[in-house]
């Protein structure tokens, strides 16, 4: 589903992405791990269109994403969450999701009908909120939610557009034990239905969710394999020396 081939990017003298090639097939969850500063978020930015790689290819379902802008990639079926929560603070949670649904439900160059009353959009939004168990927050202003709840909203926004591929940038960031477990369960339910590229530090999540793992160090992929293989891989252990043990 997603093919990254020989991606390269540098900022001035700093090479942040070195000849990266990653593959995510249509039914799997592929994890991307690595120490801080390895270039994981930068890679997600390049796939989603926030940054442009210097060279290489990005293919989604056989389609070249590079000439497409951020919004065009979303329309092509790509969806992502942000490491630092990025929602629409002045709207309610329901409206946040409804707006995300709206993006894929026909033209938004409509000037007369009240959008908040479109039952189809609201129903679909409610459906998503029900699945992630956020219904009781539906009418709260997004800006007033707790951090944990906002991570869920991030996910809801990413799912709203019925994406072909989900890019998850540290969805568990800043969550407590219980909230993390809840999120892992939910992502587990998505497994097999939607292909995912998961960037995470939480090893528990990696083990429970991913079918394969790529290890990124200093912008380059140093190892690829199943979670079990990666856990035993000496290069990866060395890279993580002093950090969370694999």
């Amino acid at each position, binding site marked *: 589903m997603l093919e990254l081939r020989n991606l390269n990017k540098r900022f001035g003298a700093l090479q942040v992405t070195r000849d990266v090639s990653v593959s995510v097939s249509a039914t799997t969850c592929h994890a991307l791990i690595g120490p801080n500063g390895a270039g994981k978020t930068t890679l997600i930015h390049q796939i989603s269109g926030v940054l442009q790689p210097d060279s290489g290819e990005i293919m989604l379902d056989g389609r070249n994403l590079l000439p497409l802008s951020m919004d065009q990639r*979303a329309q092509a079926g790509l*969806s992502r969450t942000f490491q630092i929560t990025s929602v629409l603070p002045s709207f309610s949670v329901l*409206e946040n999701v409804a707006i995300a649904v709206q993006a894929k439900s026909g033209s938004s160059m409509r*000037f007369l009908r009240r959008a908040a009353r479109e039952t189809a959009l609201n129903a679909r939004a409610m459906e998503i909120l029900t699945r992630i168990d956020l219904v009781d927050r539906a009418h709260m202003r997004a800006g007033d939610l707790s951090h944990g709840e906002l991570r869920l909203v991030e996910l809801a926004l990413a799912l709203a557009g019925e994406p072909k591929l989900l890019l998850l940038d540290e969805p568990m960031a800043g969550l407590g034990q219980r909230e993390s477990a809840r999120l892992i369960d939910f992502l587990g339910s998505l497994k097999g239905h939607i292909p995912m590229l998961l960037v995470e530090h939480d090893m528990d999540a990696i083990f429970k969710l991913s079918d394969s793992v790529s290890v990124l160090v200093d912008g380059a992929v140093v190892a690829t394999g199943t979670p079990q293989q990666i856990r035993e891989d000496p290069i990866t252990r060395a890279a993580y020396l002093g950090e969370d043990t694999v």
Partner: protein
Amino acid sequence: MDRAFTTGLAIFALLLIAPMALELMGAGYLSGLLIKAMLLAIAAISLNLLIAHGGMVSLGHAAFVAVGAYAAAIALESGIENILVLLAITLAVTAAVALVTGALALRTSGVYFLMITLAFGQMIFFTLSSLAAYGGDDGLTLWSLATLWGSDVVQNGSGLYFVILATMIAAWWGVHRISEARFGRVLRAARDNPQRTAIMGYNVKRYQLVAYVIAAMIAGVSGLLTMQHAEFVSPALAAWQRSGDLIVVVVLGGLSSRNGAILGAFFIVLAEEILSQFLHEWRLLYGPLLVVMVLYAKGGLSDLLSRPAKA
């Protein structure tokens, strides 16, 4: 029917009977003041769409009022008398100018957007000043005005007051509908978080450009009616201080309110009129008033008028 809607209706009802009531009180000349306020309100309503809903602060919006006024004036001088045709011309010309300047301006954002809209406003000001055939710096006095298929009902002393009132109501209603529709929602989402909105799948710049053009067209209509009322157009309509005045009106009235632009416009016009009766140098009060307002009364007039319920 929410509070804001009824407040709006109340204002319109008052304005509807005002000319007659004023005439009875022997103060018929005050209708002119109300017209001035309404013309300002129409332009302010359009800027409100940009600032409050779009998060786009333009310091060159008054230029579109001027473009509208001049487009109509030049057409009138060329022999086109029918106000409906003039309206079409005004809309077309302002839309064209807005499309070009907006597309360029929207390549920037934030304070750079502020500056580039200022630059375009100045360019328009100087262009209008250079139109020697139409009065240049001094402006152009119109010897004949627009008519509605020959009838002078759309002129001063006849129905112009009501035409302007109807236009203001239409603008008020229109901008509100737009803001509640899918388009407006995307615009506000982009104001909140442009990157998130783009990631959702929206071409943010396109929506902002459309908003910019719509706002410009409404401002242009204000210009057309200003020409019709004042029987005069001048490049001063595009001065950057006028753009600043428009921002004051919008913020003073209250950005989050549906009636903010109208309240702000009437307040400014009436305050200026009243203050200037007492104190020739009323700006000595007006200036500090603005500063105090910014420092202490963030929500503007409508916030002050309707605490705690938001209008």
